[in-house]
């Protein structure tokens, strides 16, 4: 009896060991096949864009391409900033202060991904119920700070990593 049990245990060990080695081997083969679909080195190399902002007047905005996506750079007027800051946080689906969406001391510059957080369309500027942006695809309204106010989008438009290289240049990424 005990002899038989021993035999079975040895077999079990061999089976388990074989399956484990097999599974690790399979995983090692599958991972490169899965990972090859992630952004390659050439895509990652395009990770920063520098923009000359010296020509942009207050109230104007420009759109630049960064990593294949549009980025909105808007130089807001005093009035627009005041308006964006007068909104109560309770009225926002994704509460965020306007101050937290801009660089300190550069409050007029709103730099954000021009990508609707619903399904990725590009919102139209100076449209919608809140004077900011309006996404034509599924009707999301954004305010002067790029915050979602109405519609299916779940969050505010994303602020990318960016910095002021000097007074006339913004580096995105």
């Amino acid at each position: 009896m005990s002899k038989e049990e021993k035999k079975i245990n040895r077999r079990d060990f061999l089976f388990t060991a074989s399956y484990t080695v097999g599974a690790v081997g399979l995983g090692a083969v599958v991972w490169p096949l899965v990972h090859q679909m992630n952004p390659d080195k050439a895509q990652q190399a395009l990770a920063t864009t520098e923009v000359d902002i010296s020509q942009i007047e207050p109230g104007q905005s420009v759109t630049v391409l960064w990593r294949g996506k549009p980025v909105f750079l808007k130089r807001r007027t005093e009035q627009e900033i005041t308006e964006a800051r007068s909104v109560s946080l309770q009225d926002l689906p994704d509460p965020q202060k306007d101050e937290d969406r801009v660089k300190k001391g550069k409050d007029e510059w709103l730099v954000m991904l021009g990508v609707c957080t619903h399904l990725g369309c590009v919102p139209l500027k100076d449209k919608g119920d809140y004077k900011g942006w309006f996404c034509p695809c599924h009707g999301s309204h954004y305010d002067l700070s790029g915050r979602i106010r109405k519609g299916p989008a779940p969050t505010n438009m994303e602020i990318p990593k960016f910095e002021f290289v000097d007074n006339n240049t913004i580096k995105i990424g």
Partner: protein
Amino acid sequence: MSDQEYTPKSKAGKWFNDRLPLLTLGAHLTDYPTPKNLNYWWTFGGILTFCLLTQIITGIVLAMHYVAHADLAFASVEHIMRNVNYGWLIRYIHSNGASMFFLAVYIHIFRSMFYGSYKSPREVIWIIGLLIYLLMMATAFMGYVLPWGQMSFWGATVITSLFSAIPLVGESITTWLWGAYSVDNPTLNRFFSLHYLFPFLISGLVILHIWALHVPGNNNPIGIDLKKPSKDTVPFHPYITIKDAFALLLFMIIFSGFVFFSPNVLGHSDNYIPANPLVTPAHIVPEWYLLPFYAILRSVPDKLGGVILMFGSIFILFVLPWLDTSKVRSAVFRPMYRYFYWIFVVDVLLLGYMGAMPAEGIYLTLARIGTIYYFLHFIIVLPVVGLLEKTDPVPMSISAPVLSSGADPALAKKDYDKI
């Protein structure tokens, strides 16, 4: 399967057949006993096979001239249209062929729903069919991206962004699908690769679909089990082949009407504008065959909720055989289900129309009502109707009501016991 033993006549045939029984398979397909009362709604299986072959043949030819690169794709499609010999014809057959394929598959699915073809013992046929349908939608979507026009680009952006609704890993999955930080050249490349692969996966599933069909045999308009072969059945060839061929000819006339007289009526003119990642078209819509699902997506004012309901509206079909509690298959003998069936058809058409309209005002309200009813049909109507309904008497055989003069209650069987 109810085949008699088959022996090839020639010695060479016998030699080959003993080693690979292809001739037995051929004989089975020829003699396959088919219900003699199949109507024209049953001809769409053959029509769909034709559609798949047409798409594969025209697609392979198009791939000889198409260039899967973000800078060249749009121009290469125009090159096919203007320079390649008969390129315009082959491309118009391929693009309209996709619509014809979906037209046929929707008729095929609704036929199955009316006559209860998804019910025991045919659940596996139904499920394989739905897998084919899912692959068809994925293939059609990726094919629509290849010309790299505005609708291609933004359709691809919206559909792939659906996955970003998944909590935690959504963004990573979307980036992985794109192979970039937005829809870009890597996306186009992989879509071309998969667009070429999927039709062959569909072909494999079609073989399983037909194999699974040949185990219990065809359902039929009165939805009863038949003895096979019997006076209720006819051999597949020549009776069904000739009927299928006639229906296919009619179908090809409609198909040709689109190809030769209005090849762009089902497409969107914005797709003749090259893709521009900075500008979204004012009104983006998917191809007509995806509109009902698009309407469901848009009717929910929440991103994740909309995505869940949209996928749910397809996946609920997989459990349809178990949601329908009625043992009687054909709606011919189901006085209540018959009405709900047509309400459901109208509901799906309504959703399709709402999907093409802007998501606001009355359209949005109607789309929401349509979405709620879509799910009610499966979750409430089907189980409850099956239990409440008093079904009409079901005949013993296809021949019985014809041979007996007038209604003979002795020949009718009560629904639950014998079906």
